C-alpha cells in the first residue's frame, strides 16, 4: 500500500501547491469537412466537433472528481482552418471562426485553437484569405485562438509573412481597443510550430495527426517552487535533481490522466506536454522558481542560466515519466499570466530584451507581453523576426504573442481578466526597423537544416 507520507505529499501538492492538469485538449481533424459552399463546410465543422467532443467536458470532470486532481481547462484543437476552408468559394473566413465558436459553446470548452495557417515557405490562396480574416474573426469571436507559422528550420523565415503578421497584430489591437486589445492575446506567430501542442493560444491539430486524439498539458510551478524551498542554499546539482524528481511526479500524474481520458472517450492518447505553465495566482509562478534559486528578481543577471537549468531538469524528469512526450514541453514565461513576472516587469527588473534572451533556453517565446499602443507594425514584425531567428537557428519552437495595447504607453497596465491575466506595458526600442521589414522575401534556412 502507498504509505501515509506519499499520500499526504500528493494531497499537499494538489491542495496547497496548485498541482493540476492544465489542459486536456482534444485534437480533431476537420479535413473531411471541406466543401465548395462555405455554409455547408461550416455546418460540417460544427457537426463534427459537437459529435466528437460531446463527452469531453463531462469525462474530464468525472476524472477530476474521482482522482481528486483538478483539470483546469478542457479544450479543442482543429486542423488549420486555412486547409479546411481553402476549397470553399469565399474570400473571408470569419464565418468559419463563428462556426468554431458555436461548436465550442455547445460542448463547453473554454478555448478552441486552429484558426491557423502554416506559411513558413509561402502562402496558398487559403492561407492568404485566412491571414486577412484574422482581425475580423478574432474580434467576432471570444474563445477562438489563431496561430500562424512563419518560419521553420528547414525553410528559413518567410519575411513576407512576418511583415503581414505585424500588420495583422496592429489591426487586431485597434479592433479590440475597448478591451485593452485583448484580440492579440488569442493570436500566436510561430517558428517551428508543433502539431500536437495542447496549450493555447497556439494549439492546432497538425496534418500528421490522427482523426482524433487526446493531448494533455501538465503544470505545477508551485510544486517545483515548494520543493526548491526545501533545498535552500544547496548546490546546482541538488537543485537540478530536486526539479527532476518533482517533474517526474507531476508528469506521471498527467500521463495517467491522459490515458484515463483517452480510454473513457475512446480516442487514442497522443502526448503529454511537460510544460511548467504558470497562472497569475500566488504560488503558481515560474518567475518565483527562478528567484528561489537565488535571484533577487526575475530578469536580473543569472536569470537565463537559472531558466536553462529549470527547463532542462523539467524535461529530464518528465521524459522518464511518459513514453510519449510532445507539444512544447518546457517552462513557459508568459508575462501577464505569471504573478512573479508581472511584478518583475512592473518594477523594471524584467525587460523585453531579457525576455528575448530567456526564450533561447526555454519554451516558448515572447508570450503575453503588452507593448505601447503606438508601436509600429514594422517593429512588431521585427520582434517576430528576431524570435523566429532564435527558433530556427536553435532548432526549437519559438513564438510571439505581443499585445500593442491601444492608447497605452510604457508603464501603464492592461487587464485581460481570467486566465489571460494582466500586464504592465513594456517598452520597445524606439529606433525603426521599417526598411529592414520592407525588404520582404525569405531569409534562407540555416546550415543546421542540411542534415540529409
Amino acid at each position, binding site marked *: 500500500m*502507498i504509505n*501515509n507520507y*506519499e499520500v499526504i505529499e500528493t*494531497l499537499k501538492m494538489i491542495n496547497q501547491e496548485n498541482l493540476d492538469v492544465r489542459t486536456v485538449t482534444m485534437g480533431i481533424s476537420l479535413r473531411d469537412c471541406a466543401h465548395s459552399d462555405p455554409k455547408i463546410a461550416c455546418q460540417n465543422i460544427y457537426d463534427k466537433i459537437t459529435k466528437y467532443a460531446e463527452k469531453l467536458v463531462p469525462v474530464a470532470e468525472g476524472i477530476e472528481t*474521482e*482522482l*481528486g486532481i483538478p483539470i483546469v481547462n478542457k479544450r479543442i484543437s482543429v486542423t488549420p482552418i486555412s486547409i479546411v476552408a481553402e476549397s470553399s468559394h469565399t474570400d473571408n473566413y470569419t464565418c468559419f471562426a463563428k462556426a468554431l465558436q458555436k461548436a465550442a459553446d455547445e460542448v463547453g470548452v473554454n478555448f478552441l485553437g486552429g484558426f491557423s495557417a502554416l506559411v513558413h515557405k509561402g502562402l496558398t490562396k487559403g492561407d492568404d484569405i485566412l491571414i486577412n480574416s484574422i482581425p475580423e474573426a478574432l474580434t467576432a469571436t471570444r474563445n477562438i485562438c489563431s496561430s500562424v507559422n512563419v518560419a521553420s528550420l528547414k525553410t528559413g523565415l518567410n519575411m513576407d509573412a512576418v511583415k503581414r503578421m505585424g500588420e495583422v497584430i496592429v489591426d487586431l489591437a485597434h479592433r479590440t481597443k475597448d478591451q485593452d486589445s485583448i484580440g492579440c492575446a488569442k493570436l500566436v506567430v510561430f517558428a517551428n510550430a508543433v502539431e500536437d501542442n495542447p496549450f493555447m493560444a497556439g494549439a492546432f491539430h497538425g496534418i500528421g495527426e490522427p482523426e482524433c486524439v487526446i493531448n494533455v498539458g501538465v503544470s505545477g510551478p508551485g510544486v517545483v517552487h515548494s520543493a526548491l524551498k526545501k533545498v535552500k542554499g544547496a548546490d546546482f546539482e541538488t537543485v537540478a535533481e530536486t526539479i527532476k524528481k518533482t517533474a517526474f511526479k507531476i508528469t506521471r500524474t498527467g500521463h495517467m490522466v491522459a490515458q484515463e481520458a483517452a480510454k473513457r472517450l475512446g480516442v487514442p492518447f497522443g502526448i503529454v506536454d511537460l510544460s511548467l505553465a504558470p497562472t497569475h495566482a500566488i504560488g503558481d509562478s515560474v518567475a518565483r522558481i527562478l528567484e528561489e534559486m537565488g535571484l533577487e528578481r526575475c530578469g536580473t543577471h543569472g536569470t537565463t542560466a537559472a531558466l536553462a537549468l529549470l527547463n532542462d531538469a523539467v524535461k529530464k524528469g518528465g521524459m522518464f515519466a511518459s513514453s510519449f512526450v510532445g507539444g512544447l514541453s518546457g517552462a513557459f514565461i508568459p508575462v501577464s499570466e505569471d504573478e512573479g513576472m508581472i511584478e518583475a516587469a512592473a518594477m523594471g527588473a524584467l525587460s523585453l530584451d531579457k525576455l528575448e534572451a530567456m526564450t533561447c533556453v526555454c519554451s516558448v517565446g515572447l508570450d503575453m507581453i503588452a507593448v505601447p499602443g503606438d508601436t509600429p507594425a514594422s517593429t512588431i514584425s521585427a520582434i517576430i523576426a528576431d524570435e523566429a531567428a532564435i527558433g530556427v537557428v536553435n532548432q526549437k519552437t519559438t513564438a510571439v504573442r505581443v499585445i500593442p495595447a491601444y492608447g497605452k504607453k510604457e508603464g501603464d497596465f492592461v487587464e485581460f481578466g481570467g486566465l489571460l491575466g494582466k500586464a504592465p506595458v513594456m517598452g520597445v526600442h524606439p529606433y525603426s526597423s521599417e526598411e529592414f521589414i520592407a525588404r520582404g522575401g525569405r531569409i534562407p534556412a540555416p546550415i543546421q537544416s542540411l542534415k540529409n
Partner: protein
Amino acid sequence: MEKAVLTVIGKDRTGIIHGVSGVLLDADINIMDISQTIMQDMFTMVMLVDIANSKVEFTSLKEILREEGKRLGVEITICHEQIFNSMHRI
C-alpha cells in the same frame, strides 16, 4: 475490487474513526487497511477502502464525507488509489 484512498487530517478527537466508518458502513464500503500517525502536529489517518460495491455514487460519497468532516472538525478527502500509484510507484 476498486480501491480508493480516504484521508482524514485535522485535530485529534474522539469519534473520528466511528464517524468515518459509519458513513462507509451505510454505503457498503469495505475498509481494507487503516493507518494513522501524527504528522506535523496533525492527526493523519489514511484508509484504503474498496468502493466496488458502494451504494453511493462517488460524487455524493465525496460530499457526504465532506459534511462528516465538517461535523468532526477535520478534513476528509477521498480519491481513487490510481493517482497515488501513478505518482509514487513505477
